[in-house]
């Protein structure tokens, strides 16, 4: 029978036992999601900033599309990546289906629109504030991108964390492209689905508590870094 008591005690027992299978699962979850967020950030931050600075025909369409893609269902992203990486698909030769790499690719697709859309919004606001100064310095728009991104860095930290939240919480995409293979592509969220399907609800909720604790920890670290940097730089 499930009670919140035995879910918490299961979570505690799991953490205290330092079960090696659990540690592998936690590490893989972190590696996949952090890697996805890093790759997505490298593309989405400059992309979002560029979108804020340049005016071109169809710009509004791109903005609306990015905003809409923030709500892309993970299972749809997963299905698209599955069809792409499947042996019968266009990139089947690479043999990437059911590997952590496939999971990273799927999560990049989920996270990229979030970071790009929110970066666009933040940089546009900042540019509105500083446009005159930046123009008087004679900066080209290309040169403004790093300057504005750097100035917006504290806000962008939250944007990246939102992306990380999306990546670490989703299960639909990694389940399809990873296959939830024990010891290879099993992560926290797919473990929770598996334990639920076994009817082992205390274990499922226990894993959920651990996942939540991990995400909280990462957010706390990011928050602390941000605050320290703010204080130092005034």
């Amino acid at each position, binding site marked *: 029978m499930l009670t919140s008591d035995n879910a918490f005690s299961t979570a505690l027992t799991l953490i205290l036992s330092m079960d090696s299978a659990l540690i592998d699962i936690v*590490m893989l979850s972190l*590696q996949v999601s952090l*890697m996805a967020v890093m790759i997505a950030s490298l593309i989405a931050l400059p992309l979002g900033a560029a979108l804020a600075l340049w005016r071109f025909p169809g710009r509004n369409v791109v903005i609306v599309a990015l905003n809409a893609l923030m709500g892309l269902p993970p299972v749809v992203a997963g299905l698209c990546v599955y069809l792409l990486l499947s042996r019968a698909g266009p990139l089947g030769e690479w043999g990437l289906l*059911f590997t952590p790499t496939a999971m990273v690719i799927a999560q990049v697709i989920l996270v990229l629109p979030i970071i790009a859309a929110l970066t666009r919004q933040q940089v546009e606001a900042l540019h509105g504030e500083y446009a005159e100064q930046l123009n008087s310095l004679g900066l080209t728009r290309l040169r403004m991108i790093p300057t504005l991104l750097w100035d917006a860095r504290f806000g962008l930290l939250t944007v990246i964390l939102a992306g990380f939240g999306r990546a670490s919480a989703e299960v639909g995409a990694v389940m399809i492209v990873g*296959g939830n293979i024990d010891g290879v592509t099993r992560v926290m969220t797919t473990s929770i689905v598996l334990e639920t399907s076994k009817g082992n609800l205390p274990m499922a909720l226990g894993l959920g508590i651990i996942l939540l604790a991990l995400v909280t920890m990462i957010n706390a670290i990011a928050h602390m870094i941000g605050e320290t940097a703010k204080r130092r730089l005034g």
Partner: protein
Amino acid sequence: MKKATALITAGALGVTFSGILMAADDYITLASTTSTENSGLFDTIIPTFTEETGIEVRVVAVGTGQAFEIGRRGDADSLLVHDTAGEEKFVAEGYATERLNVMYNDFVIVGPSDDPAGISDSENVIDAMQRIAESESPFASRGDDSGTNRAELRLWEDAGVTPQGEWYRELGSGMGPTLNTAAGMDAYTFTDRATWVAFDNPQDLTLLFEGDEALFNQYGSLLLSAERHPHLKHDLAAQWHEWLVSDKGQQAIADFEVDGQQLFFPNAE
């Protein structure tokens, strides 16, 4: 400075990450069913196989319908599923060159302990299913084209019942989620015995009907065609396929128990 830190982090992540990717090359990907995975069978028999051969087996546990699709697309090296008619069709279509009986267990009907349709004293499974339909008692169906779902639909057909109406609820879910849902809404459901015995959240559900020959549930291993998908690891997959039906493999299957109960019965010829 920050860039350097970022680069180092990226490098460190990259190293750990590629570490995962380069782990053991001697592995096959096996598409199989949730019943074999959820019951814990693979946790018992795969380590034995790996110890003997050095081949790792990576299991993707899905419904039988999806397993066939994975096999057709060339995304798994081997299949272990439970839908004999579907498997024979798979061979006939040329996707597999050989199909072998590996083991069997049986399906059972579980439902709320007060048994509103009174199926526990049914003469046979056809009778039991007719009683559920006549009393319009809630029935949770997998509805996901899995081996269990296909077996259930065949039985409705044999019973002369068209399963539809408010009482018949197609969930489109795996066996575990279906049992969770059936438990939540006090519905009858059709399940393989292995998943049922290993299931931890029965609530008021109890086993109500079992033992009819029509509930026989055969599992088969498929050797995939090297012609269709030359890139697959056919040599390694063939070793797995042959091991399953070998004395050692059959013994490993027979040795697997949950709560002292044997869940799969080897029956390779």
